[in-house]
């Protein structure tokens, strides 16, 4: 297991003893129970777990879409665990590039306008953001489809638009939630290759998935179960421990 003690100063992400408690119908649900780990710049990490393991809650906390009940979350040197809604909005805009399972593109906007969106909230001038959006679409080889709306694109193309949108603001990390979950295996493979390229280019990637096969492709995987970390090691090892060598595709 790698060191998750929080000793790593200068790490991009440092999560210390994070808990998240929900109150549902008068009952207390402990989704995260004292989770601690760190992620360095340039790492590609999968957070893997079964349904109900707390991985989605972990993803929301890491993405600054939710705040922990207790514990500390340092992102790029900033304590984001007690920030206000608007402060978190700025952090999301600057530090995080989201890639969602269901793409979450605005259906009435073109691919280009969708990619521009994070820059709109950064207050960037229209001309500059258009240029940057075009460059981001070029990285995912979709410049030829930039004036198409999401319903005119295939699933793989939509996810590439979403990746371009995540890349456009040059965030500290890309946070992907089941990025291949809605794609057929060939298109999924295409997207994973794109992630490999981005990793090689120095991007920090955090993938939240329930697929051991995908986790096996990551250099590092953290496995969650019942809101706690049960494994933290190389992607291959963690995936194999979950599903065996065949299922993990290793």
């Amino acid at each position, binding site marked *: 297991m790698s060191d998750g003690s929080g000793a790593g100063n200068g790490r991009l992400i440092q999560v210390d003893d994070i808990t998240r408690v929900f109150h549902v119908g008068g009952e207390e649900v402990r989704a995260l129970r004292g989770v601690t780990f760190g992620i360095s710049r340039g790492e590609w990490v999968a957070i893997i777990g079964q349904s109900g393991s707390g991985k989605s809650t972990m993803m929301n906390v890491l993405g600054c*879409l939710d705040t922990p009940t207790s514990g500390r979350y340092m992102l790029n040197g900033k304590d984001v665990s007690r920030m206000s809604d608007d402060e978190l*909005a*700025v952090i*999301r*805009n*600057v530090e995080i590039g*989201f890639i*969602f399972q269901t793409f979450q593109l605005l259906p009435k906007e073109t691919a280009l306008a969708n990619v521009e969106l994070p820059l709109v*909230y950064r207050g960037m001038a229209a001309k500059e953001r258009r240029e940057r959006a075009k460059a981001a679409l070029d990285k995912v080889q979709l410049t030829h489809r930039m004036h198409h709306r999401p319903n005119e694109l295939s699933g793989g193309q939509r996810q590439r638009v979403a990746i371009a949108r995540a890349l456009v603001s040059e965030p500290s990390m890309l946070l992907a939630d089941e990025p291949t979950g809605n794609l057929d295996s060939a298109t999924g493979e295409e997207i994973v290759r794109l992630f490999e390229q981005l990793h090689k280019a120095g991007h920090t990637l955090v993938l939240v998935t329930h697929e051991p096969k995908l986790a096996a492709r990551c250099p590092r995987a953290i496995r969650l179960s019942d809101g706690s970390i049960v494994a933290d090691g190389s992607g291959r090892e963690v995936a194999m421990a979950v599903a065996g060598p065949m299922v993990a595709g290793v």
Partner: protein
Amino acid sequence: MRAFLDNLRLALGTFLGNPLRSLLTLLGIVIGVATVITMMGLIEGLRTKVNKDLGRLGAHTFQLTKWPAGGFGRFNWAKFAKRPNIDMEDVHAIEMLCPSVGVVAPSDDAGGQKVSTASAETRPSVRIIGASTTYPITSGVSVQSGRYFNEVEGLDGRSVVLLGVDVADSLFPGIDPVGFEVRIQNRPFRVIGVLQRRGSFLGMVSMDNQAIIPLRVYQQMYGKEWSLAVDIQAKDPSLFRKAQDEVTTLMRRRRNVDPDQPNDFEIHTNESVTASFNQLSQVITIAGIGVCLLSLVVGGIGILNIMLVSVMERTREIGVRKALGAKRRRILGQFATEAVLLALFGGGLGVGLGFGLVFLGDWMVGFPMSVPPWAVGLALSMSCGVGLLFGIYPAARAAKLDPVEAMRNE
């Protein structure tokens, strides 16, 4: 500014995306604004016309009467009826004792009269005016053909008459009536002139359906028990106030009015006559704004409803926008801009419709209407206000949405 422009672009996109829904939503605002524009057009037109028609008194002329002007307010007519009449003795006293007064022109009139010839007769709607020889100086009437009666005819009470154009046309179609004989109340009159066309008062009552006879003859026919209306012109515009003061003092003295009592007669100037109309027009303006406000509230509820639907439909979009870095106030601004733009568009349509109705009214009934620019400004500002007022709640709801929950929305 950039955020505002982005919000404006988004709002326009939404608006154009659902044009029919947007238009139906705006109906209340359109009707409200059209109402206020039309009413303001009507009032402003009426005001211009009243000022023009009532402003027949010259720059330094005023009128002395027993009765107050207008009839727009609630008058205690019984109280005014008890006032002493203004008679020829008063007129002579003014002529003699008010040094600043130049011209005094007493008159009286009777409506609903018939004028006839041996072969034709008008309807019983002619106004017969008994006037002095000075009447043309103060009243603005002028003679189209023939002449006005002279001093001798006036003092002697000769049976001469000047016909208004309408009367002349109905009794003598195509002929100059000068020299012919007409009958008023069975008394024969020789036509000595036809008056210049004057048009209608407020676009409704013809001012050419009248006939002028010497006041002395008039009083022989209709009696002397009626109070006279006396037009009084100051010798010089600079003496206008002084002449009024002299007449007021003289009349109070002649009628023995105690110093602590108000006048028992009226002095009208152009200002005092139009003031009573303005009082009425204010009441109509307030009523118009009331109707407009009511429609705007109805329109506002439409906007509230459609914005709530819009927020519900676009919950997921709001979630995505927030996830990508939109702050609360940005989402608030986006939806508030949308509501205001919607309302403003409704206001614009209402202004257009209002102008259309004003134009139609002008064309159909020949009533002069003009919309004051401030009414357009007021209507559009009120639309904006309604959009903001009723759009802020849905916008606040959108801004408060939790991004995770919102993105899960199907």
